Structure formats: structure tokens, C-alpha cells
């Protein structure tokens, strides 16, 4: 039960308008099923872009195929809606062409860890300076509810009518082991925390991977529902050290009670840095040092 202290609408509206985050929304109303957790994510991304003061034209949203991949249409920025599973390579191309852009890749669990699973390790180890938001609802929504690589064992779907025999992947553990330089987890049902995590992920220089747990309100009425997720998620322990990859992996191992927060963070050269380095090593000359990144405000909170 929330605070029942009355909220005065016009004050609230003014606060929201003044914040400027509406500028990061497109005009189009999102077409996801009402109640979908993805609404929470698009809202948080808008708020984070706003908070980091990233100019709209410097942001690029790249996606593949799936429910989540409609995302670029709802953000007031550049975007690409590419092929199933191929968003990460496209984003790598975009980022390599212009390092000044803020590139956000969005995709679902199927896009990222089924068809496109082969691309994730490479984007991570190269430390492409992009933010990869993985919308994990543990199901294939767009094809109407089949199992995904993160579906639980025993989950019944049209393609696993008796039960899903496969154990789910642990993308966090995978990505930690792939060498991603920023790894975190959030939950669509906690919009505040989600927003803070996205802000940090975007602010990070390098490949940031944010795993976002979300329900599929249309096809999953039993497993990953708001009700279940709400009870399962916990915060990372207060004393968790985000520079300790092993500690992060230990926390990531607990997929029954997923912990929310920043698992791991390190600063290391990005793909662009490495390419620049190769050029230097070859004795070439950089084509007029890429303009400094657009100014970023540090997170307000």
C-alpha cells in the first residue's frame, strides 16, 4: 500500500515536464501488450538519456527481431531495426563508424541468446562501447509464446506442451565470463532502480550489459509473472564488490533469487581504443582525432 497522501496532478505534471524526459519519447504510442514490462524499460531509457543529457541526435537504438525490438520506434533518437539476432554486429558497425554516438542495443532473450547467441561473446570481449539492454522475459512473445533459452525447466509452451526439458541459460554468468566490462541486472517491475542502472550502464565506457528481467503478460501466466518476479528478486548484498569478477559470478550463480544491481565493472580499452592502437602501431595517422564525446552530465543521484 502506497502513501495515501494526496498527489496533486498539476504539480506532478510540471515536475515531469521540467525534467525534460518526455523529449526522449517519440510521438508513437508503444504497441506492446498493455501491462508489458518493456514499457518500463523504454520509460527508463528516456529518463536516462535525459539525465545524462545526451543530445537526441547522438543516440542510436539498434535492435533485432522480437517484441523488444520494436523499441527504436518509441525513442526519439536514431535507430535501426535489423534482422533477428544480428543487432550486435550492426551496432558494432555503427559504433566503429562513429565513436561519438551513444549506441544502445536492445534485444530479447531469444534474439540475444538463441539465434544471436554467437554474437554476444564477441561484442563483449572486444569491449565495443555500446550498451546492450537484454530484455529477458523467458519466452518468445512475437511468435506467440514458445520457450526461449531462458525459459525455466518444466515450462509449458506450445512447443514444449509436456514441459520444457532444457535448463535455462544464465546470461549473466555467460557475459561475465565473456569478459564484459560492465554487467548489471534490473527488473522491469522496479522502474526506479531500472532507471538508475540504465543510467550507469550508458555512462560506462565500454561494453555494458544490463540484464532486465521482465514478465510476458500475454503468454506467460505461470512462471515469470510480476507476482513471481516481485517475490524472487533481491538486492545485491550491500558489501558486494563490483570489481571482483568472481564474486560477481558467485552472485550470478543464484538464478533462483536473482540479485539486482551492479555485478561487475572494470575500465579497459574499448574496440575503438584497440583499433586506434593498431593504427598507431602500424605507424599510421588518425584521421583528425574523433571529436570529443558529447558532454555527459554525471548521474544526478
Amino acid at each position, binding site marked *: 500500500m502506497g502513501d495515501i497522501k494526496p498527489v496533486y496532478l498539476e504539480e506532478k505534471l510540471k515536475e515531469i515536464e521540467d525534467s525534460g524526459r518526455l523529449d526522449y519519447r517519440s510521438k508513437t504510442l508503444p*504497441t*506492446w*501488450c*498493455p501491462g508489458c514490462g518493456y514499457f518500463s524499460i523504454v520509460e527508463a531509457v528516456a529518463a536516462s538519456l535525459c539525465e545524462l543529457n545526451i543530445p537526441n541526435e547522438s543516440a542510436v537504438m539498434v535492435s533485432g*527481431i522480437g*517484441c523488444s525490438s520494436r523499441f527504436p520506434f518509441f525513442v526519439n533518437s536514431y535507430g535501426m531495426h535489423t*534482422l533477428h*539476432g544480428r543487432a550486435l554486429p550492426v551496432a558494432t558497425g555503427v559504433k566503429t563508424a562513429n565513436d561519438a554516438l551513444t549506441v544502445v542495443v536492445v534485444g530479447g532473450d531469444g534474439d540475444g541468446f*538463441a*539465434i544471436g*547467441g554467437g554474437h554476444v561473446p564477441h561484442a563483449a570481449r572486444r569491449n565495443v562501447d555500446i550498451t546492450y539492454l537484454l530484455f529477458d522475459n523467458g519466452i*518468445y*512473445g*512475437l*511468435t*506467440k509464446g*514458445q*520457450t526461449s*533459452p531462458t525459459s525455466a525447466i518444466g515450462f509449458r509452451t*506450445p*512447443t*514444449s*506442451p*509436456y514441459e520444457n526439458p532444457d535448463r535455462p541459460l544464465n546470461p549473466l554468468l555467460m557475459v561475465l565470463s565473456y569478459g564484459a566490462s560492465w554487467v548489471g541486472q534490473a527488473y522491469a517491475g522496479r522502474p526506479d532502480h531500472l532507471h538508475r542502472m540504465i543510467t550507469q550502464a550508458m555512462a560506462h565506457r565500454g561494453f555494458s550489459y544490463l540484464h532486465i528481467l521482465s514478465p510476458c503478460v*500475454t503468454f506467460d501466466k505461470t512462471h515469470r509473472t510480476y507476482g513471481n518476479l516481485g517475490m524472487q528478486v533481491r538486492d545485491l548484498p550491500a558489501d558486494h564488490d563490483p570489481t571482483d569478477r568472481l564474486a560477481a559470478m558467485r552472485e550470478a550463480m543464484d538464478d533462483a533469487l536473482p540479485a539486482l544491481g551492479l555485478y561487475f565493472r572494470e575500465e579497459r580499452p574499448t574496440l575503438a581504443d584497440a583499433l586506434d592502437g593498431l593504427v598507431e602501431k602500424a605507424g599510421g595517422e588518425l584521421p583528425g582525432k574523433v571529436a570529443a564525446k558529447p558532454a555527459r552530465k554525471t548521474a544526478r543521484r
Partner: protein
Amino acid sequence: MSTDIQISIVGSAGDGTIAAGDILKNALAGMGYKIISFDIYPPEIRGFGKCIARMRITTEQAYSLKHKSDVLISLDDSHAIPHANEVRECGAVIYERASIVQLPEGGHISAHIGPGQLPYPVPIRELAEKSTSANRSRNIVVLGFLAGLLDLPDEAFLKAIARKFKRKAEAAAAGEAAYRIGREFAAQTFKLDDVVFGPPVSTVVPGASVEMINGNAAIVRGALDAGIDTFFGYPITPATSIMERLAIDMPKRGGRLLQTEDEISAISAVIGAGFAGARAATSTSGPGLSLMAEMLGMGVIGEVPAVIFVSQRGGPSTGLPTKTEQSDLHMAVFGGHGDAPRIVIAPTNVDGCYRCAGKAFELAEAYQTPVIVLVDLYLSNRYETVVFPARPPFEADVNRKPGKQLAGAPYKRYALGGDSVSPRAIPGEKGTMHVVTGLEHNELGRPSDQGEMHEAMSRKRHEKLQGALKHPDLTVCKRFGDEGAVDVGVISWGSNFGESLEAMLKARGEGIRCAAMKVVMLSPFPTERVAAFLADCKEVLVPELNYQGQFANLLQAHVARPVTRLNRVPGEPMKVEDILEEIRRLAGKKAAQKAA
């Protein structure tokens, strides 16, 4: 009295349009009517896309849908308004009586109902909420209303509703409540006595069963009746339901189905299982077939049986994923790298889906090659009433086995000569061990880059397929209509043939001398029989749902003669009227020439 009624339900995604159509079809089929139906739905799960459930209910099986419906049900006016004029004179339009939001002038469907049509406003939402305290059951409320309006028996509907919600007792009870309140409301309304259901005609022969089924379900049934052992697949519209249905039924028969991570993996697994002797298949649509092309080449060169069910949709790329089109013929017949001949069969109706699906496994084994069964979204999702024979008309095992090997004689997996089909051995059998490779190989299956060998093997791979044209109990092509010389011949393939046939029959009714031919086997091509037909025709019309005229291209590659192409890509089935118009034009042209 014979029945011929068409009902359309139009709604927005999430309104339960398709579900309502399913219940209605099942109820009517349960009563013994023949049904042909085809649903149209948008790519979004929710949101604002248009859904149409459209069905034609007849005493005898019809070939296609009609252009005008007898009843239109609107679950969403913004989508239904453009279809209001598709209701025939004296037909009925059933719609939501009151809007929740203020509408602009003309925003309500009642503004678009012509003077000849009958309006039926129903407080659908209110009735739904009244009966179940929720608005989800609006679709069932209208079904209740429809049943009342057309005086259809409750039992058939309640059975169909119970079947729809079989695992959810609560939903079934709510469905029944919604149905009853709709029906009750109809009792207060003006009766539509123009749409009359005559008595259904039973065509069940002893032992056979009659089912209202769609193309994909028929494919599944054919595969099961042919004894499919393994299936690997990846969801893609409009083929997904093949896999979904197999997922339910295959384990019951000891079969194994696996959802792989992508099409590349799926076709790989199918080839592996085929090598190991299983009857294996996958299903996909155009984009998936593209991904599979590389592994398809492997199947051809390795002479591994494999069955690929392909349901076409609008392309290229993601294109029109929920719309129908016949534009993958080129890829199915020619697609891939290298000289990679394969068998491609394209059924023309739901019954054909069943037969082709079963025969595909025979063909794959008999000619040791990947077989593509090419349907499209229209046929996959189209429901028809099909009579299934008591015994499946498929051979359980047509493997040509190597038999007892002479001591010391090496087993030639790819032996040349004869009908070019070599004995095929399966792992686990003694004395016939060999290697299947993607490299060009000799008769033993060992790598060989000799030019002669590549020529010989290429010829073998092509020649062996000729046998498929004479494969027993398989319709390769078939002629309908007038015998002998005709003014106009219509030749077509796939789902589009129903409309072509109906148009040809109508043209005959108008006194035009004409005939039609359906071509089921596209590769290898039945050149002789098609050429004979074309020789009878003064004018040839080739209607198909693609822009390029892919079938006409294929036809002309085998039989050089001018044809008239009718190509449409509206994402929907072709209109019978359009084909008919073209036949009339061609017949007129002929007459004019004669007169001159």
C-alpha cells in the same frame, strides 16, 4: 436446400477475432457443414493491427472464399468499416452498439452500412462485462448473438467453446456465460431470415473421418500418418503451428521434436537424423528457407532424405510476415549454391496438404534427396473440411536397402547406373559403412574433384528425380473443365488454384469454353503433360500471387509458348472475379480474332 454462407469477423489484435472464428468453424463443422476459411492477422500480438476471420460454409466443399460475405461482425469499427461494403445485399452487419469514446461523424460503423444491408447493433462490451465482469469475452458474446440470429443449435457452440478452453475450466465457464448472454440478447432482436442453413450433407464413408482442419494441421497429420520420427524446427510465421501441433502429437507416437536455436541448426539436425535413418522434417517460411539453403546443398550432395515444409509469406526480408504470397517458388526450386536439384511439391488445397506431406517422406526416401513441400500462409491457415481415409495412403518404408553385401565387395553408397537411385545404408547396419560428405565424391562417397566424376554425379542427382514424376498415388498435375481444344486454359499452382478453378467453372457457366490445370510437382517439372495441355489452349492464363510471375517463368523455361500472366501481391488471396474478368477478356479477344 444447399447452404452457401460466408461470415467475416473483423477486429483488432487482442479482440479475440481469430479465436471467435475458430469456435464458429468448429461449431459449424461439428454440425456437418463443409468449411473453407482463411484468417488474416497482423504481426503485432497486441496493438492496433487488423484481424479477420473469414469463413465460407457450404453443403459441398467449396474451392475458395467468396468476395462478398453474408454476415460481417465488427469487433473494432476502425478496421471493419472498410469491409462494410463487402457484405452482400440483405446481408447482416453485427457491431458494437455504443462507443466508449466520443467518435467523429462517420466514426461508427453504422454510418457505413448500406441501405441494402441489415444493421445489428449489440451492446457487446456491456453484455460481456455483465456476464463475466470483464471485457475479454466480447468475441464469445457475438458468437452467442450470431447463433441466436441464425437459429443455430447451442450444443455445437458450447462444445466448440469447451474445446477452445479445454484446459481452463474457469475460462470455459466464462465463455459459456458470455455465449448465453449473447444468445439471449438475440432473442430480443429482429431475425435475419435471409441467411438460412440447409441440412448438412454427410459424406462420411465407412472408416473415414471428416475433419475441419487447416493446411498446417493437415501437413502435420500427413507427416504423422507417414510415420515421422524426428522433427527439428524454429518458430516462424506462418509455419509455426506445424511445429506446435507436432510438439503435441509426436511424443505420443514415440517421435522426437526439438526446438533448435535457429533454422541453420534445425536443417542440420534434420540432415543428421535423415542420415541416421529417421523420417525427419523441419518447417519454415521463406526467410528460414534462405538460412537453410547452405545445408540444403549438403543434403543434395549427400543424398540424404529430408523433408522441409515451407509456408510462404510476403517478402522479401521480413516483408509482410502475416500476409500470403507465392513468391518463394524460385528459391524453393532454384535457390542455393551449386547445381542442387531437389523435389518441390505444392499442394493446392488442404486435402492436398495432407497427401503431399505424407508423400514427401516417401519421395525423400525413394529418391534420397531433400523434398520441399511448398505451401503459403493462405493454405497454412485456411480451414477446409477434409475426408481422411481409413488407412493412411502412405508407404511406411521405401528405403532402397543395399541388401546382403558380397564378401569383399565394397558398398557403393553413390553407385551410378540404372535409375540413378543408389542403395542407401543407414548407420547401425553392418557391412555398409560409409561417409556422407559435402565434398563432391565418388560412388563410394570418397572425396573426388575429378571433372568426370562431378559430371557423372551431377547427372545422377538430376536424373534420379525424374522417377518422382511417375511416383505411385501422387497427383503431379491435373486437368479440369472442358476436354479437348479450349479457348482459354488457366494453369496455376498452390493455394491460388482454388480461385482459378472457381473462376474457370464460372466462365464455363457463362458459356466460355475453358479448362484449368493444377501443377503440383514443380521440380522436377511435368513438362510433357503440361505441354499437352497448353497445346489444347488457344489462350493461356497464369494467375499467381507474386510479382515476377515465378510459375510462368518456370513454365516457359520448360514449354516455350506465350502465356498471359495475372500477377497480384495484395497479401491476400486473389479475387475470383479478377481471374474471371481476365478469362472473359481472353475469350473475347479470341472471339474478336475469329470474327476478323
